[in-house]
C-alpha cells in the first residue's frame, strides 16, 4: 500500500513555477530520499507534503486520505528541520511535548510518549535543559524526538544533518537508519549529500528544476542513470563523459557480427560489446558515453576487459581508501579510481581496460540509449 501519493502537483511563487506536474509514490515503510541541486524545489515539495505551502494544482494523499486542503497537524506527519527549529524558551521536555499539549492529550499519556521518545533517542538526561545548552547533535536528536512523539506514520526531514560536522553527520546517519529499521515508518528525506542519499535510501528521487528525473534504488540510480543529468549528478569524482557517434560494426567492418555497435570519435573506437540498449540505436547518431571512474580497470584486469586503451597520467590524488588518477586520452579527460596501493606516477603511460556493459550511453537530448 502506498503511504504518500503525490499526483500532478504544481506550485508557483508568483510567476515562477517551482514544481511542475510532479508525481511521486512512496510505499509504506519506505525511506525515500529527495536529492538534487540547490534550488530545484526539494524543500518546496516537502513543505507541500507537510501542508506548510498551499499547492497551485494537484493532489496529495497520505495513508490513502486526500490531505490536499488539510492543516499540517491533521496530516499525520512529523517534520524535522535543518536549523532544528527548537523553541528556544522551552526545555527539551516542553519542546517534545508541545504538540501533544496543543492537541490536549491527557498528562500521563504526554509523559509516556515523551519518555519513550527520549529513551529511543538517548536524551533522557537532557530533558530539563534549554536548547541553548545543547550541542548540535543533541539538538537534532531533540528535533527528531519532536516528530517521534507525534506517533505518526510519515516523517519528513529537510536536510536534518547538514548543520553538523562530518563525524557527527556519519554517526547520526547510522542512527537514523537504525531508527527507521526499528520504527518502520515512511520517511521522506531531503538532502544534497549524495553519500547520505545512497546510504539511507530505499529509493532515491533525483530532482531537477521541479521535476523528478529518476526514482530508483541507489543501485539503479548509480548504475543505470536514466539521463545525462542524473549520471553527472551522482558519483564523486563524477562520471567520465566522451562525445562521439554511434557506428554499426558490420558496416564499418571492424566487427563482424550484425548487432555490433561501436562508440567512435575521430581518434578512438570503443566497441559496445554487451551494452544493453534501451532504445534502438541508429548509425551515425551523435552520442555521449559515460564511464564511472571505478569501472576503468588497471593492471592484470586489463587483459580480460572488453576494451583496452592507453592513457596519459596527469595528476595522482591519494584519497585514503583509494586513489584517483586524472588522465588524458586523445584530448579528453578521464578520471580513474583505483586502489590506494597503486604506484602510478604523473606522466606514466597507462594501459587501462573498460567494460562497455557497465557504461552508459546518452542520446543528444540527454536520455539514456
Amino acid at each position, binding site marked *: 500500500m502506498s503511504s504518500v501519493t503525490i499526483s500532478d502537483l504544481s506550485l508557483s511563487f508568483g510567476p515562477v513555477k517551482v514544481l511542475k506536474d510532479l508525481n511521486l509514490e512512496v510505499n509504506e515503510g519506505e525511506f525515500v530520499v529527495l536529492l538534487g541541486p540547490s534550488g530545484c524545489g526539494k524543500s518546496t515539495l516537502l513543505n507541500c507534503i507537510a501542508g506548510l505551502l498551499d499547492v497551485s494544482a494537484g493532489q496529495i494523499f497520505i495513508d490513502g486520505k486526500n490531505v490536499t486542503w488539510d492543516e499540517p497537524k491533521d496530516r499525520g506527519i512529523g*517534520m524535522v*528541520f535543518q536549523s532544528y*527549529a527548537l523553541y*528556544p524558551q522551552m526545555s527539551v521536555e516542553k519542546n517534545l511535548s508541545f504538540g501533544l499539549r496543543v492537541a490536549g492529550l491527557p498528562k500521563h499519556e504526554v509523559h509516556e510518549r515523551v519518555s519513550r521518545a527520549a529513551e529511543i533517542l538517548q536524551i533522557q538526561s537532557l530533558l530539563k535543559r534549554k536548547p541553548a545548552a545543547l550541542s548540535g547533535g543533541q539538538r537534532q536528536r531533540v528535533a527528531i524526538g519532536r516528530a517521534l512523539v507525534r506517533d505518526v506514520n510519515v516523517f519528513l526531514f529537510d536536510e536534518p544533518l547538514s548543520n553538523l560536522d562530518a563525524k557527527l553527520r556519519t554517526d547520526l546517519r547510522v542512527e537514523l537508519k537504525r531508527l527507521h529499521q526499528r520504527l518502520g515508518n515512511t520517511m521522506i528525506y531531503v538532502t544534497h549529500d549524495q553519500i547520505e542519499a545512497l546510504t539511507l535510501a530505499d529509493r532515491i528521487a533525483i530532482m531537477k528544476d521541479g521535476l523528478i528525473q529518476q526514482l530508483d534504488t541507489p543501485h539503479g540510480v548509480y548504475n543505470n542513470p536514466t539521463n545525462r543529468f542524473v549520471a553527472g549528478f551522482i558519483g564523486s569524482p563524477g562520471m567520465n563523459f566522451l562525445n562521439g557517434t554511434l557506428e554499426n560494426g558490420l558496416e564499418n567492418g571492424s566487427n563482424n557480427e550484425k548487432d555490433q555497435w561501436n562508440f567512435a570519435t575521430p581518434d578512438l573506437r570503443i566497441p559496445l560489446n554487451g551494452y544493453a540498449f534501451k532504445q534502438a540505436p541508429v548509425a551515425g547518431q551523435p552520442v555521449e558515453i559515460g564511464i564511472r571512474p571505478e569501472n576503468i580497470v588497471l593492471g592484470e584486469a586489463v587483459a580480460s576487459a572488453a576494451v583496452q586503451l592507453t592513457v596519459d597520467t596527469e595528476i595522482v590524488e591519494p584519497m585514503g581508501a583509494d586513489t584517483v588518477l586524472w588522465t588524458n586520452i586523445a584530448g579528453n579527460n578521464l578520471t580513474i579510481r583505483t586502489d590506494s596501493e597503486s604506484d602510478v606516477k604523473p606522466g606514466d603511460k597507462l594501459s587501462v581496460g573498460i567494460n562497455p556493459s557497465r557504461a552508459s550511453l546518452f542520446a543528444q537530448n540527454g536520455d539514456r540509449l
Partner: protein
Amino acid sequence: MADTTAMAMQGPSGPKPKRAISARNIVLYGFLIVAALYWLLPLYVMIVTSLKGLPEVRMGNIFSPPMELTFEPWVKAWDSACTGLYCEGLKVGFWNSVQILIPSTIISIVIASVNGYALSFWRFKGSEIFFTILLFGAFIPYQVMLYPLVIILRELHLFSSLSGVVLIHTIFGMPILTLLFRNYFAGVPDELFKAARVDGAGFWRIFFQIMLPMSLPIFVVAIILQVTGIWNDFLFGIIYAGTTNFPMTVQLNNIVNSTQGVKEYNVNMAATLLTGALPLIVYFVSGKLFVRGIAAGAVKG
C-alpha cells in the same frame, strides 16, 4: 632548527603588554570627559538651583552648591505652583500624564506586536501594500493631520478627554512600532514557525507561547520608545486633552512661562526635574533589562 628555538625564546610571548597612557587614550578619554561635562553641567546647575532659596538664587552664583539646603521649591513645584488659573502644582499634570501614558503604551504595543507578527508570518493578500501604507503614514508631517483629527475626535465625542489623547498616541505610535516588531519577527527563523504549525499551534498560540517569550528585548525597546515619547509629548496634549486634562509637560510650560509675579527659578528647576524624572528612570532601569533580554534570546548557536 636551533635558530628557531633561540628566536622563539627571545621573541614576544604571552599577552601583548598594553600601554596605559598612550596619545590615543589621552585624546579619547579627554574627549569623553569634555563631552560628559558638557551634558552634565546643565543638570548640575538645575539640581543645585532647585535646592536653594530664592534670595540665594538671586545672588547669581549658579555653580556654587547651596549654602542653605532647602526642599521647599520641590514641594512647591509638586503641590502648589500656579499653572495658569489653578495653583495646585504639577501633581495634577503628573496624574494626567500617567493616565495617558499607561493605556497608550499598552494598547499601542499590543496592537503593533500582533501587527508585526502577522505581517511577517501570516502573509495575506495585500499584506505588503498594507505595510507600505502604514510606513508611509510615519512620514506624513503631524501638522497636516492636526485639524482633521480635531474634527474626528469631536465626531467621536472624544475631544478634550483623556481617551482622545490615548487614541491619538496609539495611532501615531503604530507605524514605527509595527516596523519595529515586523523587523524583529522577520529575523526569527521561518522554520520555528513551521515547526509550531506542524505541532498544531494556531495564530494566537504561536504568538503567545513561541514568539512572545523570545521577544522580550524588542518589547523593552518598544516600551522605552513609547514611554519616553508619550511622556515628553506636548503637542497632542495641549491640543486634544482639554484644560483639565493637561499632561505634565503642558503644566510645566505653564509654570515656567507664567508672566505674573516673580520668576521663581528654584521652583522652575524643581518642576523641570520632576517632569524629566520618569524618562530618566526608564533609561536607567531598562538598560540593564535590555541587555539581559538580548542575552536570553539565543535561538541557535
